[in-house]
């Protein structure tokens, strides 16, 4: 079982390592996702800023169409020349001219509002800014973007009036040798439409804010716009961000443990008024060890090395199965077969050399146990009771009897005394060198000695091998020879003198005793075994009834 256990330990370590690696991978993935989100947010922020600037530049080019219109230049100059009051004619003509030019601009590039401003800063005419309708003294000249345009600059700005406006302005010239006649100002309202358009072109979820509140927002598909409402609560601490305060762009902030946000100030007056935009992203992360399954898409699954994983699993399972078969199933099967053979009587004992590991020890112990039982004359028979054995033919003397060999002063053993236990040939401590009895070819002892290991043979040699029934006199003689050898060995071990002790004498005594017992008990045969009694070798005769 060593290999199997090693394999289990290895699998356990591998499983633990897998969990550990998966935990690390989850952490690394989430960290990488957060880092990627931060980089993506910075990129989004830059892209939005570039888009705003580029959009303003492109739209300032559209203002040229207004600037070169002769009516616009002419009537702006008329208004400029009239310091006291804007002439009504100029208002009407300019409004018509604004509408005419505006209609020539593609719809998606049109401004939400267009203003024509004279050199005094007064709004002579305007389109799309209905809030100022009816205000005769409506002007814009104080805003730097308008003042710059009136002095020959084209530029952009972000104004926070009633709403957020992205504004571009450029001068309108009537007489090249004098101050510009006025300026034309185009404005785009930074509303949800603007934010959605921006989001669709940049791919970023974006929200514009002013005065501590979200003004507009837009997000690509898959991103809930409602997430952007969370920035309102976060903006309270935004001014404490030194990078936002100094550079106009915050660090990547995480709201609610999930939403990554980066804030940027809008260029223009909005910069000073706390107006800006926030780009937001949700982090790509996995929840727990098995979150990868939910996060992975079909492409990920296609790229996963599934065959390798299956191969590893199959190999691991195969190795485990081989080990368990080799160390568990096969030994048990062998043991089962051997036990089955033993049960069927095809063999008299289990052969420990056929087993491995603990099974060898079990077999050896079983053999020892059987030997003990046989040495006691056999244990109680299992199965149906033999009435004859139970009730009838009960001998006068106990079946078990023992005797001392002639010339031996020791008395016969008393089976009931229990002082002397029959035993097989005792193991000499220290493995003393004993004279080996002559080996008889064909004897069971010889057979065992040549087929078993040294350990097993020592066990086997202690076991008297009873002749099978019907072996006749030859078998009986062979058994007696074995008993003689055991007896001589035992005597030597007990320190008795064996000089002059011959097999012939021993055989005569056995014959006599054999006949006596057969006659007395009507037994079929008598089994002899040796044992030690009071420090001396003794022989015991047991009549066998069946």
């Amino acid at each position, binding site marked *: 079982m060593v290999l199997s256990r090693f394999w289990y330990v290895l699998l356990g370590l591998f499983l633990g390592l897998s969990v550990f690696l998966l935990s690390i991978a989850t952490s690394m993935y989430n960290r990488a996702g957060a880092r990627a989100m931060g980089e993506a947010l910075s990129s989004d922020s830059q892209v939005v*800023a570039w888009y*705003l*600037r580029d959009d*303003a*530049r492109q739209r300032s080019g559209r203002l040229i169409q207004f600037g070169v219109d002769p009516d616009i230049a002419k009537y702006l100059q008329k208004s400029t020349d009239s*310091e*006291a009051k804007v002439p009504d004619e100029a208002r009407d003509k300019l409004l018509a001219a604004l509408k005419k030019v505006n209609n020539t601009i593609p719809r998606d590039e049109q401004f939400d509002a267009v203003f024509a401003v004279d*050199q*005094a*800063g007064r*709004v002579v005419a305007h389109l799309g800014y209905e*809030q*100022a309708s009816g*205000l005769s*003294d*409506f*002007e*814009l*000249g*104080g*805003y*730097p*973007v*308008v*003042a*710059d345009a009136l*002095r*020959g*600059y*084209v*530029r*952009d*700005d972000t104004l*926070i*009036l*009633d709403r957020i406006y992205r504004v571009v302005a*450029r*001068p309108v*010239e009537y007489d*090249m*040798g*004098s*101050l*510009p006649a006025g300026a034309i100002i185009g404005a785009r309202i930074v509303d949800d439409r603007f934010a959605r358009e921006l989001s669709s072109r940049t791919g970023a979820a974006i929200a514009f804010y002013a005065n501590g509140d979200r003004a507009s927002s837009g997000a690509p598909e898959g991103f809930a716009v409602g997430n952007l409402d969370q920035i309102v609560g976060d903006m309270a601490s935004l001014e404490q961000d030194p990078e936002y305060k100094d550079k*106009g762009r915050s660090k990547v902030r995480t709201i609610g443990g999930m939403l990554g946000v980066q804030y940027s*100030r809008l*260029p*223009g*007056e909005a*910069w*000073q*008024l706390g107006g800006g935009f926030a780009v937001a992203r949700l982090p790509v992360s996995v929840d727990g060890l098995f979150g990868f399954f939910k996060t992975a898409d079909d492409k990920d699954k296609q790229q996963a090395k599934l065959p390798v994983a299956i191969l590893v699993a199959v190999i691991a399972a195969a190795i485990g199965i081989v080990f368990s078969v080799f160390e568990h199933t096969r030994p048990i099967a062998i043991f089962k077969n051997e036990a089955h053979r033993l049960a069927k009587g095809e063999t008299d004992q289990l052969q420990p050399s056929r087993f491995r590991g603990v099974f060898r020890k079990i077999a050896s112990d079983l053999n020892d146990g059987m030997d003990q039982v046989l040495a006691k004359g056999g244990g109680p028979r299992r199965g149906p009771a033999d009435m004859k054995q139970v009730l009838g033919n009960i001998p006068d003397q106990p079946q078990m009897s023992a005797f001392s060999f002639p010339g031996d002063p020791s008395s016969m053993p008393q089976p009931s005394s229990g002082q002397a236990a029959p035993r097989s040939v005792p193991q000499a401590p220290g493995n003393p060198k004993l004279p080996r009895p002559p080996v008889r070819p064909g004897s069971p002892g010889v057979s065992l000695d040549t087929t078993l290991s040294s350990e097993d043979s020592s066990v086997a040699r202690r076991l008297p091998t009873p002749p099978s029934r019907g072996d006749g006199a030859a078998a009986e003689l062979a058994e007696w020879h074995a008993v003689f050898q055991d007896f001589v060995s035992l005597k030597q071990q007990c320190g008795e003198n064996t000089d002059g002790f011959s097999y012939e004498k021993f055989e005569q005594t056995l014959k006599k005793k054999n006949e006596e017992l057969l006659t007395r008990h009507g037994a079929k045969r008598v089994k002899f075994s040796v044992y030690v009694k009071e420090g001396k070798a003794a022989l015991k005769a047991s009549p066998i009834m069946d």
Partner: protein
Amino acid sequence: MFLVAGLVALPSSADAARIKGRFEGFRALQNPVWAEAKDPKNHGYSFREPVPTVRAEFRRPFPHIPKELCIAAIAAGPQKAQPPVLIRVGGGRTTPVTLVVTPGTRLTFQNTDPFKHKLYGVGIKTFAAGDTGPGATRDWSVPGAGVFEIRDEAAPSLRMWIVSEPNVAQAAYPSMKGEFSLNIQEPGDYVLQAYFAGKKVGPATPVTVAAADVELKGPIKVNDSSAAADAKASDSESKEGAK
């Protein structure tokens, strides 16, 4: 040419004499708000480029003098408080931008924009920030002599200066060409002083007013050396930008 005569209620009578004059060099003055706004460090824009067809001399943040350059006639002694003055708030500035009045004069700020303003006096406890809705007005009396600055929390470009001078008898604003005319009620000796962005600019010009109108012999030059240097720098910047 009294542009703000309808806005600033100045005393006048049929017997009043006029002082007529002309400013020179006012294009060398710099509107401080616009001068700050053009500085890239203030992040006022993402791009700002000169239009080459506009002459460089015009590409400066010179003020809109009909609102920003004030000429005041300073009498020898204190004058009585002037009537309330209406100040329009709209278009990213006030009209006028610089005002010269006697202490105690009540000012009425009227929002002419379609959205609210939040005016406040810089360091003035009696003029805390407060909303003024579209069309609404807000009154404030000049507490004493000195220079007071008004700003708007909703519009950084809006900055107004109120010069409170006890001896001011009359104030007026020039036309875009720099011409001005002051109505003087009482004959006597006066000093003409121009104010821009809350500060005196140009020389103090003594004038004696009798029954007849007075025509100043020469223009009042309001460009000082620093302003001229800035103007030159602005010119060269504009030329480089045009290239």
